[in-house]
């Protein structure tokens, strides 16, 4: 097996507050795990325990086979970590900062030079290498933090909100960078930007109130939406009063609602089935002309809300 990160029954209590309460999952080489959840769900706390910054109340974390409690130095050596807010030494320049990280990571001579140059190149900070970090914009600070985390080409990457505070172009660059590295690493990314689920992740874990609520692929996550495979349909030159009863009469349709934005309807399939082909066929057979017809993938924000809010109520 190529399990790089194994987390078993991990918990962290701060007094009465159960920040993380029995979280288990694992990440393989080649996987990008999107770690989702509302603010305060326990994402950062979990990541801090994986990286050895926080000591768990109970449970185990193994990174590349090393236990974080018994061999923290080996765990820290085999991972790259971008903490929330990308802290760095403000009075250093990215160049001196990255060279310090390289020293600590055991790189020297030509290897060190190459590692610093390559990390700076990939994080696109080459032209700010000699300005004090405190004078850099939020986006550049984030990228300096990112360069720091990938400097030693670690087998495991833990990135806490890597695209937070970046503009759309910078977000795109960071996602491209992560995608480029994904094939030979195990990566955990925490985010609350749902568009990243499809742009980046091969798997998602959703947590709320310190517990895992979902663990599966982005597709599985989307298919939990009531909009999954719903079809938006517009038929030309036919009165709504004729269309609605007809659609209701079809056995593969479970519901119909009018679209608010423009003319047309949203048709819900029974049991989330794929109905686009069937639907367009019966409409044409009926002699009507289809103006537009497309299927929806599902809405992540709605799934996210239902997973995390239901669980919150369940706790009370």
């Amino acid at each position, binding site marked *: 097996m190529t399990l790089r990160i194994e987390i078993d029954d991990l918990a962290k209590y701060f007094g009465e507050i159960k920040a993380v309460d029995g979280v288990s999952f694992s990440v393989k080489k080649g996987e990008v795990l999107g770690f989702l959840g509302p603010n305060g769900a326990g994402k950062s706390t979990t990541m801090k325990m994986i990286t050895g910054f926080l000591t768990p109340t109970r449970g185990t974390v193994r990174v590349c086979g090393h236990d974080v409690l018994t061999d923290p130095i080996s765990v*820290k*050596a085999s991972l790259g970590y971008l903490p929330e807010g990308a802290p760095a030494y403000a009075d*250093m320049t990215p160049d*001196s900062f990255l060279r310090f*990280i390289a020293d600590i990571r*055991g790189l020297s001579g030509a290897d060190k030079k190459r590692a610093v140059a390559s990390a700076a190149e990939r994080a696109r900070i080459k032209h700010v290498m000699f300005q004090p970090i405190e004078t850099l914009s939020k986006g550049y600070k984030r990228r300096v933090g990112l360069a720091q985390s990938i400097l030693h080409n670690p087998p495991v990457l833990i990135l806490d909100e890597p695209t937070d505070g970046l503009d759309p172009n910078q977000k795109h660059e960071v996602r491209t960078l992560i995608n480029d590295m994904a094939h030979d690493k195990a990566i955990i990314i925490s985010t609350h930007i749902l568009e990243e689920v499809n742009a980046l992740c091969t798997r998602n874990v959703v947590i709320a109130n310190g517990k895992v609520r979902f663990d599966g692929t982005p597709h599985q996550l989307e298919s939990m939406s009531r909009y999954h495979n719903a079809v938006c349909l517009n038929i030309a030159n036919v009165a709504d009063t004729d269309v609605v009863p007809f659609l209701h009469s079809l056995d593969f349709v479970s519901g119909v609602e009018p679209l608010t934005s423009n003319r047309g309807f949203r048709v819900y399939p029974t049991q989330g089935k794929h109905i686009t082909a069937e639907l367009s066929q019966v409409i044409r057979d009926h002699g009507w002309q289809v103006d537009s017809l497309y299927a929806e993938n599902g809405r992540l924000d709605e799934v996210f809300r239902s997973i995390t809010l239901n669980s919150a109520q369940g706790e009370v």
Partner: protein
Amino acid sequence: MNMINIWFIMKRELNGYFATPVAYVFIIIFLLLTGFSTFYLGNFFERGEADLYPFFSIHPWLYVLLIPAISMRLWSEERKNGSIELLMTLPVSVQEAVLGKFLAAWAFTGLALLLNFPLWITVNYLGSPDNGVIFAGFLGSLLMAGGFLAIGSCISATTKNQVIAFVISLIVSLVFVLSGYGIVLDFFSSWAPATLINAVSSFSFLTHFDAISKGVIDMRDMFYFASVIIIWLFANAIVVNARKAD
């Protein structure tokens, strides 16, 4: 413990001192104060003796004021801006980080102390002092500075606020100095048993430093300062571990 990591952390920290004007301001103030106190308060010329006793005797009091200004940022700044999370998730141990930072601060203080060499030249030009005693004085002063720095470093780890770190370090340092000062000991001597007075005064930096600065290099005094440094740094590592994520 990985020595090379201690060295890298020390180097980074030391570079940090000189990245801002803080280091230069500190060194200038330190030199002004030692000069002022040696010549005016210590009556260097009027004494007519070829030694640096007036210079060294003011050191405990200067350190009480100035060392907390160096040590206050060692850990509280890391905690405040979150870089402690970065440092503590690099493959270094807490002990290495504590030692690296402490040694950087100590080396910096040592540099400031060495820059007083014109005084040494002056006293050698004017007379023929016992340079062995002067060497002992520098050594004792450096050891005492290490003691103050270890106290300050540990206290700096307890708070994110540098001003609080400064004030508390100053007060604790003052206690360590005053416990050997005549007035304080007199206060005890009227009612306390002699063993208690001896115990209190034996904890004082003043008692141990005074002996060294007069040229008496007693292993017990050296051992005392070494123990102070080790004990406070040990506590420092415990505090960092306990408070790093707060």
